[in-house]
């Protein structure tokens, strides 16, 4: 293999990293600039993703791999200086709050490829971010696949429509410009690279990257035992518990991952477009089987994921999908349930899974505020390692600093620390969840919007390990609240949250005494009967 191809591949990965950094620097939404809820990638002319920034979260990363194909089909003739946009949940990354921007790359007057990026914005109009919509029409403004800029001229009509339909128009339009600008950064670097290596297009490097990635991924799959296995996990859902079912089949050159038997759609906004299901199922398989192979179209291809139309994992339009992440983040644990039977001793126990996010609508004497926070429970114990305490998995986002959150609105976070005794027992202990307590200053009241699972269905242990502690949501007067939906909190009260721990791995009686002693010394475990 030629050294030039090696270098260009490496360069493409650096270029998309640069593209992602440019987005973080100029974005307005906290979800992008603080929490890193974004992705960025480069594509060949046929729409094959060649490289993707490692920054970002799998729901974006893997879903965006498919997005460019939709743009190619729907845009028609493309010109230098064009920029395209959509927030279509079924053609982008699963809900209206994700804006995807695609820019075609022209080199020497020929169309040679694309840059694309996605970011989660804080507001897109409609009812606001939450599970309470009955259809996608209530969840916000829908932007079909269309031109944002035509040969460099921004569509002012589109901008006016966006501004009129959203609560924070300046920030949203600012974020869209940031998305477009980050693609431009990538574009300039790619042209320099093509120039430097005297390449007219991406055809040769594309074939090189895709062949190497496909071959390497298939080699890993070929080395697996030929088997099939079923997995199942029951979770809270919103209006009724949800059963996630999966069947895995390993073949010579691919793995089939079929979610047949999974519950139907929910009337409320926790449904998942299939693209997002594919993203998280592929993530679970990839990080177990081929973690070191860079993400691109060819390295994702051998993971064939399907879910029956009309199930909660393949919800058709116009199902409400705003909080598709709550279900989507639990897909990897379901896949692991099956994968563990094919590859014993490789995958972790179940963990908190879904991010533990909540939003406050705060009403003061003269003003109203919206405050959103991202938080995490514990991850499942690994075959040879304890779970990670209060760490996001499978999502890749970060939490916001308490001091920064308290500056963004009249909110007081009274507690944010590890939750002792919440990790499932086992030879390896589950990761700890966390306690939070949140309130507002005197003279204010607030509505609490919950976005949690694992209230009634805590993370199960594996191989004899115990379950993690469940989610608890209550007001300071002791009133229990649901895991999803909005509830008013009377003045003077706070909301207390206990986020779930991960499941344990292996029989607890085999946990080494040193590890138990350490747990007690550090206060991870306080129970006397340990």
């Amino acid at each position, binding site marked *: 293999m030629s050294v030039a191809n090696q270098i260009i591949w490496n360069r493409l990965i*650096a270029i998309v990293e640069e593209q992602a*950094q440019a987005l973080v620097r100029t974005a307005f939404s906290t979800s992008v600039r603080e929490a890193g809820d974004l992705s960025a990638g480069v594509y060949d002319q046929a729409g094959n993703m060649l490289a993707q920034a490692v920054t970002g979260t799998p729901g974006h990363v893997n879903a965006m791999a498919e997005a460019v194909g939709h743009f190619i089909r729907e845009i028609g003739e493309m010109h230098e200086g064009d920029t395209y946009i959509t927030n279509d949940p079924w053609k982008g990354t699963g809900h209206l709050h994700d804006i995807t921007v695609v820019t075609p790359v022209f080199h020497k007057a020929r169309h040679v490829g694309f840059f694309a990026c996605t970011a989660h914005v804080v507001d897109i109009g409609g009812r606001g971010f939450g599970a309470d919509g009955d259809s996608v029409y209530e969840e916000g403004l829908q932007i079909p696949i269309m031109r944002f800029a035509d040969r460099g001229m921004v569509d002012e009509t589109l901008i006016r429509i966006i501004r009129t339909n959203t609560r924070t128009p300046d920030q949203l339009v600012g974020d869209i410009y940031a998305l477009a600008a980050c693609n431009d950064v990538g574009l300039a*670097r790619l042209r320099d690279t093509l120039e430097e290596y005297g390449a007219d297009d991406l055809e040769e490097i594309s074939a090189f990257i895709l062949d190497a990635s496909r071959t390497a991924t298939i080699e890993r799959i070929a080395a697996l035992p030929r088997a099939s296995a079923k997995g199942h996990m029951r979770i809270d859902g919103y209006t009724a518990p949800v059963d996630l079912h999966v069947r895995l089949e390993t073949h010579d050159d691919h793995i089939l991952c079929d979610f047949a038997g999974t519950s139907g759609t929910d009337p409320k906004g926790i449904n998942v477009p299939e693209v997002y299901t594919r993203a998280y199922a592929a993530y679970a398989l*990839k990080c177990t089987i081929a973690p070191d192979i860079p993400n691109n179209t060819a390295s994702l291809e051998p993971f064939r994921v399907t879910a029956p139309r009309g199930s909660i994992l393949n919800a058709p339009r116009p199902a409400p999908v705003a909080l598709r992440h709550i279900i989507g983040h639990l897909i990897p644990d379901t896949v692991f349930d099956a994968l563990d039977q094919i590859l014993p001793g490789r995958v972790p126990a179940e963990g908190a899974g879904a991010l533990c996010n909540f939003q406050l609508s705060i009403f003061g004497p003269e003003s109203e505020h919206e405050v959103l926070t991202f938080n995490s429970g514990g991850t499942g114990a690994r075959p040879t390692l304890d779970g990670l305490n209060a760490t996001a998995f499978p999502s890749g986002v970060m939490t916001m600093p308490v001091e920064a959150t308290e500056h963004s609105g009249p909110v007081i976070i009274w*507690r944010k620390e590890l939750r002792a005794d919440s990790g499932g027992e086992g030879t390896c202990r589950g990761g700890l969840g966390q306690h939070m307590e949140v309130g507002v*200053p005197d003279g204010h009241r607030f509505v609490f919007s919950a976005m949690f699972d694992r209230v009634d269905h805590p993370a199960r242990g594996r191989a004899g390990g115990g379950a993690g502690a469940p989610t608890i949501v209550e007001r300071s007067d002791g009133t229990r609240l649901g895991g999803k939906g909005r509830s008013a909190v009377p003045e003077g009260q706070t909301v207390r949250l206990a986020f779930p721990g991960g499941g344990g791995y292996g029989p607890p009686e085999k946990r080494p005494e040193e590890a138990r002693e350490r747990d007690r010394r550090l206060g991870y475990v306080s129970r006397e009967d340990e």
Partner: protein
Amino acid sequence: MTAINLGVDIGGTFTDVVLEVGERLHSTKVLTTYAAPEEAILAGLAQVCAQADVEPARITRILHGTTLATNALIERKGAKTAFITTDGFRDVIEMRTESRFEQYDLNLVLPDPLIARDCRFTLHERVDAGGNVLIPLDDAEVEALAARLEDFDSIAIGFLHSYANPEHEHRVADILAARFPAKSLSLSSEVSPQIREYERFNTTCANAYVRPMMADYLGRLKARLAEAGADCPVFLMHSGGGLMSLEAARQFPVRLVESGPAGGAIFAADLARRHGLDRVLSFDMGGTTAKICLIRGGTPKTARVFEVARTYRFKKGSGMPISIPVIDMVEIGAGGGSLGSVDALGRIQAGPESAGSEPGPAAYGRGGSRPAVTDADLILGRLDPDNFAGGSIPLKPEASETALAEHIGQRLDLDALTAAYGLSEMVDENMANAARVHAVENGEDLAGYTMIAFGGAAPLHAGRLCEKLGLTRLLVPPGAGVGSAIGFLRAPYAYEATRSLVMRLDAFDAEAARELLAALRDEAESFVRDCAPEADISTETVLHMRYRGQGWDIPVPLPDRLEAGAIQEAFEAAYSNLFGRTVAGLVPEVTVWALSAATPLRPIEPVAGAPAGETATGTERQLFDASTGALAAAGALERTALGDGTVIAGPAIVTEAETTIIVPRGFTAKGRADGTIDIRKSS
């Protein structure tokens, strides 16, 4: 009387000592003596004093930088330290950002917090974002806690929002100091008074953790130097690129972290000023890492947070944040010792694993069997096997060839030469990519930049790096092997005081701003005054600003008038300069106020334009040419042969004891009056 200054840099492998007598420099490298680092300094001091025929008693000042604090954090060899924080927030330094720095590793291990959970204690108290007390501190509870702190040598104190109101931290410190006069106390409102609790608390814990050890070391050093006759003042280089007093360093040793590399940046900045260069990329490449820094207008770029002790392939997020004023550098695992390998996809990887000095690259013949970048450099003709490190380490090309063939060539069906080229290209590419991303993070475009290369391995790779980055000019200064220690000699006495206070411009309180700036001025000037009681002190105020709603702020120099309109204008000018346009209708806000006080930089003597000189050709040597993919003839000559104005056209090899400079095809090297080699792309 001539001023005689001694610069001392303690690095991981070597302690560099430079004595400056008037215009003359005398330098030496001594192996670092970890158990008692002052021993190496005394040995080096004796050597350079002998070289220069100067009595230690005649030394005017000693300027010192060291990696000791950094190493203590990396190796976790610090004091038994307790951390006291706000009730409900015991785990801030353990929960970090609640994210994984590597997405695909199911067996990821997060670094342990610097202070373990059973050494972290909480008190009932709370201050809100505006600095108002929500729950007052209870003295009795502090007294009760003190009873549990007997066994700790050092105590860190960090409460939420203490950057806005430090009273509770001060009260706790007063009570503890009365009870434990000998224990070291570090307060977050003094060590790092900035918003964002994780960074502030971690910085405070790091300070407390290294403080007893560093205070002891600095005390011993001062005493030993005095015994040796060098009873002059000792100043410490801090991570922000200025000098601080020994006493300040004993209080805030966390500010010494990365002081060595900061000296390198100052070294490059001084050269940039002498050559009248406005935009410079400094490139420092040694055995295990490469450091890249942007220098504008003769001043290195600074930042307020950086990361030390990365635990996972130098990956961002795998270390711990330290928020102090710092010269902003990107450091990656790329050096002469970086090992080459082939991954599962048949991709050549360079580093971050390093051969170190033992066993070293295969060519050293000390038992290393895996190919390092130095092996590639040797096979590509860049190094002379008989003249490496002044001939002190004879290199074995056969060993390099075998290592390259076995570990890369056979896997990829490449001959040893092409494998060497692949490894070298990959390490250069990694460095180029790091430089590009660093430039973007700083809102800079590298076009029009000049590179300054120093450190043992940098001049071998700088030419290729320039080609990759599109730079057309490269300077290699003399003394490149001891650049950091020379940099200490050029550093001003400087201190930056910062405070987090969010102030929207539509609710600008000029009175409060004036008071805050006055307090910052007192703090910064008194630090500088301690070092240089007589000197002129100049101050500069920078407001870190953003649109309300954004997360990243940008530095804005304070305009002449302290009023909202003028500040808004200055902000908009800076913002559109970085991002092309301003955002209409949004309110800007100030987040961090920073005031730096410094003594003037030494006056520079511009380097005179080179006279038209001879063209040298050198003797013929084989050097790999990337454009043809084969070895080709290149001119080789000693650095001393490139006198003022003498030129040699690339491809060429300029050799000296400390390093070798590669001049690529299409570039021309010229000697300059100050001994610098000035390499430019031929037009």
